[in-house]
């Protein structure tokens, strides 16, 4: 990869890593937990598929932003 690609790639990966952490990591309290935000699982699955299937660097570059989380949640 060229030096020019690296910052763009780093930026995209950083965004994916951020969303992956916020939706998938972090404390969940057993017992009284109320994960009442509908669609978290769906978004999570969507992201995992996206990350797992990052087939080419181009496709990673195409992820301008985290695509339509809300739509995914409702879909």
């Amino acid at each position, binding site marked *: 990869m060229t030096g020019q690609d690296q910052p763009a790639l780093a930026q995209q990966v950083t965004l994916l890593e*951020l969303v992956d952490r916020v939706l998938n990591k972090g*404390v969940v309290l057993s017992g009284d937990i109320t994960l009442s935000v509908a669609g978290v699982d769906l978004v999570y699955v969507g992201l995992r598929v996206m*990350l797992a299937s990052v087939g080419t660097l181009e496709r990673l570059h195409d992820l301008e932003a985290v695509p339509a989380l809300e739509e995914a949640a409702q879909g």
Partner: protein
Amino acid sequence: MIYVYALMEPPSQLPELTGLGEAPVERLDVAGLAVAASRHAGEPPKLSDEGVLRHAHVVEELTGSGAVVLPARFGLVFGDGEALERAVQANAEQLRTAIARVRGCVELGLRVLLPEQAGGRAAVAQGGGEYLRARLRETTERDRLARELHDALAGLARDSTHSAPVSGQLLLSAAYLVADDDVETFRRAVRTLEDSHPELAIVCTGPWPAYSFAASTVGAAP
């Protein structure tokens, strides 16, 4: 309804922060821990890009204020203060253990991508038996490479978590809990790996709040 951003060792003062839906972030003291949370009437906050980024921002600011922070996963909500207290009480010991573990550390992320053509190498090999053998060599080589990269960094971390998919372009995805004083050493080690593996795209992200090391000791989280 109470929406939780993070659990903390009680800090002297919480910075002034705006949470989901423009609600102020408050400090609630529960079972010897401080909970950063906001109050909401009616429906819990909906999942949205803005909400995810707001949550991340609040946790980031709390961490930046010098407190020892266990980030909550997006969507951790409780009907009222009593429900929150019960849940924190029930997990107090694990939470304290997790706080002790992340104290003085940051989380660094790592993703390693293979060059594009690598995934298809086995497919062009001739014949079924040869395909399987090539495929096996490739899988073994993937595994070896992922292990080499991870081992070189895990030794510099207090704790780590990683996954190495058996196929696809993502070779390694990992998180490392690194002491503040060792961050530069860690980054140097990443650069050394980059130099010795110019064919790989190695992306080190962070420092992050310790999302990946907050949940594992806390009951749930399938």
